[in-house]
């Protein structure tokens, strides 16, 4: 069960709307390496994870990712507040606007709606954690690319925070993978799948 905390994990306060930037940043909500996919991936993987510490890290990172979804949504919301039809046309936001107005919709920057293929759950602890390590790096790269494209300090500040969290999550998942391997046969980690074979 979850409870909602009525505050952002890190503040989002953007003075100047910028629909073109919103269209780019929304990829961290509904894109292949976005926060929605990350949260659902870790929540789904918990069930087949046999080790308590790793159930803990998957639960707690997934919960934080829900908070990051909210931050990305808040950034997109604030970047599209009070924009005119002229700005919408000039910025290229029209292709999003026509389907969703300024509502928040889970979509990649390229226009592909959220695809559940992005959240992998394989039922094998080594496979799943290796996936998670890659996922955190892919999200970090995406944030690096957003930082290359953005120039507004109001946008850069929360994006830098989110980028840093990807690095922290990568570290924790690395430790989780080591914890799993420590409990397996060091000569052959793949001798059996601790989530399935008994």
């Amino acid at each position, binding site marked *: 069960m979850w409870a909602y905390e009525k505050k952002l994990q890190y503040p989002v306060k953007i003075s100047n709307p910028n629909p073109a930037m919103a269209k780019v940043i929304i990829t961290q909500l509904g894109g292949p390496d976005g926060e929605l996919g990350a949260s659902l991936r870790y929540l789904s993987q918990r069930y087949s994870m046999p080790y308590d510490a790793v159930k803990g890290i998957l*639960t*707690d990172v997934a919960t934080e990712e829900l908070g990051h979804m909210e931050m990305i949504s808040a950034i997109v919301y604030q970047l599209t507040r009070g924009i005119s039809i002229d700005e919408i046309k000039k910025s290229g936001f029209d292709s999003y606007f026509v389907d969703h107005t300024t509502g928040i919709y889970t979509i990649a920057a390229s226009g592909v709606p959220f695809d559940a293929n992005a959240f992998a759950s394989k039922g094998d602890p080594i496979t799943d954690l290796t996936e998670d390590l890659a996922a955190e790096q892919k999200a970090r790269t995406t944030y690096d690319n957003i930082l290359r494209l953005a120039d507004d300090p109001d946008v850069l500040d929360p994006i830098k925070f989110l980028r840093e969290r990807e690095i922290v999550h990568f570290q924790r998942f690395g430790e989780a993978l080591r914890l799993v391997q420590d409990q397996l046969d060091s000569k052959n980690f793949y001798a059996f799948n601790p989530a399935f074979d008994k």
Partner: protein
Amino acid sequence: MNDRHMQEKIIRAAKFAMNDAALFLDTHPYDIKALEYFKKYQKITADATAEYTAKFGPITMDALPQSAKSWTWIDGPWPWEKEAN
């Protein structure tokens, strides 16, 4: 039903009453009767949760007791496991 399950049942019922009342209050924010109902179960939830936490560990990580000597948050069974229900 063991003691842990009994305590959990009280919290689950009281918390559910709160959640359900909250949905009603979202659309009826000035309904005093509903507000009082919420407060009643808020108190029951708080008391039962404090008792549960002291005996069996935290349900939310905020509730980790100051006296804790280790991170009992990760201790199983986890909610999706049969043993926890």
